[in-house]
Structure formats: structure tokens, C-alpha cells
């Protein structure tokens, strides 16, 4: 028993930075995993990745002007992300071009701009924190920001749940009964950007997408209801965070990749052993009923 305690519990009892990391990652999982489920169901799984790149010039500008501070980098990232999301969304809504193409165009423009801005400042070790995060050094401001984003996200999802489902399931129908389709799409993109912003303090701009998408993609293999998919994704997310933090603590691994790789292991296991995974769908020859 003492071994298990030392391994699983003690790190979080003994060290304040581990407690902060745990709290921050819980909040992130609760907030960004359901967003990931909707991204996946809307076949926009790679959009999260694109948006994460899109945030870069804003965050870099904040970094350039104010140094490694949360508030300016967050606001900068938020502006860049929203501009790209709205531009790409607008092109797909009001022209014949689909969102994948317009999103690719705008995020690449944004990424190039970001790299340009970063290079003005010259290479900096600090900037690695932007790209790969510092979950073990979350301060009060960062935790507060993540909590705020989580609250906003949950309220937004609950408020627009029915519209989000309708917009995924039958967008033409939603347009025929309500003008909410387009606003809901933009609100949703804003939530995606917000969650990536929340994640980049802890996990970095690139890896924060991982906590959003991997648990969601894994949950798809276990359930066929959207509600339970969101719940399961949150559980997977929380589990990945705990596992990743512990691995990082005991094996002196970088925390961000440890968390995302834990989620990756859950995903691969789900692909193979999930209710609609490979083993169930292929290997086993199912019995069938008479009607």
C-alpha cells in the first residue's frame, strides 16, 4: 500500500506545483474535451490543429511587446485566432469554397506571420514555453484564466447544445427553421479558439489540440450518444492528465508530451478494444438474429 500511495497520491499532496498542474489540467479536460467531440462530429478534427497554428502570430506579438506574460499573449492569441476563424468561416459560408480550403489558407498566412514575428525577436528559449507549455509552472493568473474559459465553454455548450446538434446533423433543416445556424457556427469556433488559448499556457499551442481531440476521438469508439461521448471524453482527458503528470514526475519527462501521449495510448487502445473498435468489428464474427 505505501508504494501505491507514494506513486499515485504523494506527488500531489507534497508539492503545490503538482496540485496546480492537476487543477489546471482537470479544468482544461472538462472544458476542451466536449469541444473536441463536436469538432470531431463536425468533421473538423484538423481544424483544431489549424487554429492552434493560427494563434501563433498573436501570442508571438504579445511576447514580442511584453515578454513572457500571460495577459498580453492570451489577448494576442485570442485576436489572431478569432480573425482566422471568422475569416475562414465567412469564406465558407458566403462563397462556394468549403471550410477546409479557406481554413488552410488563413492558418498558413497566420503561421507565416507568426514565424516572421518570432524571428524579429531572435531565437529565445522562452518561446519554447509558448510552443510546448509549462503546466508545472501555472500561476494564479493562468489558473484563473483557465477556470474562466472552462466556465464560458460549459455555459456556451449547454446553451447552444440543441443548435450544435442540429447544425451537425442536418444543417439545411436548421436553416429552414431558424437563423441560428451561422451564429452558432461562429460561437463554436470562438469556443475552440478560447480553449486552445486556455490550453497553451499549460500544454503549449501545439499540444493543447491533443487534449481536445484525442479523448474525443477515443470516446467515439465506446458510445453512440453525443451526451455520453462528451462525458467519456472528459473522463479520458482527466485520466490522461493524471497519468501524464505522474509519469512526468516519476520519470522526469516533460509534462505536456507525457499527458498527450497518455491520451494517445487511450486512443489506440480504444481503436483496438472499443465497443466499435477493430476487435469487435472485425475479429469476432458476430451472431445475428432472425429479424
Amino acid at each position, binding site marked *: 500500500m505505501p508504494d501505491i500511495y507514494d506513486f499515485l497520491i504523494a506527488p500531489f499532496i507534497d508539492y503545490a506545483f503538482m496540485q496546480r498542474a492537476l487543477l489546471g489540467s482537470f479544468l482544461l479536460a472538462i472544458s476542451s474535451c466536449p469541444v473536441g467531440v463536436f469538432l470531431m462530429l463536425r468533421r473538423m478534427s484538423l481544424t483544431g490543429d489549424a487554429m492552434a497554428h493560427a494563434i501563433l502570430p498573436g501570442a508571438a506579438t504579445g511576447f514580442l511587446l511584453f515578454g513572457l506574460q500571460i495577459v498580453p499573449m492570451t489577448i494576442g492569441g485570442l485576436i489572431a485566432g478569432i480573425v482566422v476563424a471568422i475569416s475562414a468561416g465567412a469564406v465558407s459560408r458566403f462563397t462556394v469554397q468549403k471550410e477546409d480550403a479557406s481554413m488552410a489558407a488563413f492558418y498558413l498566412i497566420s503561421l507565416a506571420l507568426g514565424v516572421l514575428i518570432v524571428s524579429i525577436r531572435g531565437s529565445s528559449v522562452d518561446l519554447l514555453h509558448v510552443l510546448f507549455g509549462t503546466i508545472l509552472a501555472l500561476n494564479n493568473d493562468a489558473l484563473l484564466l483557465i477556470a474562466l474559459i472552462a466556465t464560458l465553454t460549459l455555459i456556451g455548450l449547454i446553451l447552444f447544445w*440543441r443548435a450544435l446538434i442540429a447544425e451537425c*446533423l442536418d444543417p439545411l*433543416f436548421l436553416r429552414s*427553421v431558424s437563423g441560428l445556424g451561422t451564429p452558432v457556427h461562429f460561437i463554436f469556433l470562438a469556443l475552440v479558439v478560447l480553449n486552445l488559448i486556455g490550453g497553451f499556457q499549460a500544454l503549449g499551442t501545439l499540444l493543447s489540440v491533443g487534449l481536445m481531440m484525442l479523448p474525443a476521438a477515443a470516446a467515439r469508439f465506446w458510445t453512440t450518444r*453525443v451526451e455520453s*461521448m462528451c462525458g467519456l471524453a472528459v473522463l479520458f482527458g482527466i485520466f490522461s492528465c493524471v497519468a501524464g503528470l505522474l509519469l512526468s514526475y516519476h520519470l522526469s519527462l516533460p509534462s505536456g508530451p507525457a499527458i498527450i501521449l497518455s491520451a494517445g495510448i487511450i486512443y489506440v487502445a480504444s481503436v483496438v478494444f472499443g465497443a466499435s473498435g477493430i476487435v469487435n468489428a472485425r475479429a469476432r464474427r458476430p451472431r445475428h438474429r432472425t429479424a
Partner: protein
Amino acid sequence: MTDACLTFRNLTLGYNSHPAVHHLDGSVKHGSLTAVVGLNGSGKSTLMKGIVGILQPMAGACLRETGGRIAYLPQQSEIDRSFPARVVDLVSLGLWSRRGLLGRFTRDDRAAISNALGSVGLEGFEKRPIDTLSGGQLQRALFARVLVQDADIILLDEPFNAIDTKTLGDLIDIIKRWHGERRTIMVVIHDLQLVRDHFPETLLLARHPIAWGRTKETLRPENMLQARRFIEAWDDEAEWCEPATLGIGLDHQSRGARQNHDHQPAPAEKGAA
């Protein structure tokens, strides 16, 4: 025309500056049951989209009575069949106009959904995932959603696609029941025998309205012949219909003569009861 439910005023709808419905005038009466007939590309579906409001007019207007609920069954739905939803989730979307974003579904709502599924022959299908439905079953589920919508104006775009003959009779009965309830119904349909048997009024389209009125008169051989001469293809060299500023003041006939496309004389009767 005091009891007009829908009024078209010189309505032109289309895509990329080419008209698909051209200069449509007239009105649809309250409680009328109208078949919309025409060849492929004659503007039937485009007219439906224009009425629903998902396609904005290029010219003219489509005026809808305020306050009335509208239900629309598109020819090609944009349903994502891989979405993890059950039949009941799909059909309950029909409650949107009454329950909106946050309203709770009541016991009556659930009963209405079950009844609607029963009416289209899908009783007991509530829990079935939508990706396990056949094409015809999905079409029936969508028909059930229209039932749940409980709308005053009902637009059905080729609703009998992929429907077996047994179900066809049930769906026709539902349409007749709606007609009895004084709802306004427009149905895009290709089977002229069904039109003659069940639809009191018909709009025959070939981009322009060829005829519009009682089914028997609309479907007269000379009208059908005229509709059949309709040229489906767009003409990229076609002259502009009305110059943005110069069109005003010219009467219809002279404009028609000046342009390369023929304007039909206004249909003699519209929406005769």
C-alpha cells in the same frame, strides 16, 4: 386575393446570374394543395428554397404571411448519416419552432413523435441509429419530422423518392389529412398520374410558369408540350434580363421582345380555388 398565403411578385431566383425561376407572379391560397410539376432543371426545387428563404431572390419578392410556421422537406437532405443520432433525435428536431433552443420536451411532445413515426409506418424505430436506416426509411423519418413540425405551410420536394407503394398510400393519406386541416401544401412531384388523382391545383414550371391553376386545365396537352420544349441548359451568351437602372418603365412585352429569351404572357389563372 385576401386569403393568399404566399405571394410571388415578379420573383426571379437562380444561381450565378442565371435564372432558375424567372419572373414568377401569383399567389398560393390558404389551405390549397398544389403540385409543382416540370422537367429537370425547370426551377421546382429552386422555388421551394426561395419560399423557405434559404435562397435569396435575384429580383422581385416572395411574400409569406407573417406568423405562419413553415415545414420544408428538401429533395436532397444534408443529413450526416454518420452522426451518432437515433431516429427520435432526428424527428424531434421538428419541435424546434415550438421548443426552440432551450425549451424542454414534454410528454405530449414525445407522444407526438411516436404518433408521427407510427403514421409513416416506423413505429418502434425510435431508438434505431440513423445510419442503420434504408433510404426509404430515412425519407419516411423525415416525413415524420414534417408531421411533428405541425406547420401551416408545408413544402415537400419529391417526397416520394425511394418510397415503396405501400407507404406511398400512407403518405398521400397524410397529405390529404393536412389538406383537410386547411394547411397550405406544395409538393414537387414527377408522377403525373398521382397529380391528377390527388392534387386539386398544379403549377407547371419551365423556368417560367407555363400554367398555374386547376390540375386538369394546367396539365392540358398543349401546356405539356410547351413545357417539354423547355431548354434546360444555361446560355452563357444570353442577354441580361434587365439592366439595373434602365428596366424601370418598360412594359413587360417590350422587354421580352428586346431580349433573347421569351417571356411567357402572364398565366391566365392563378391559384383558382
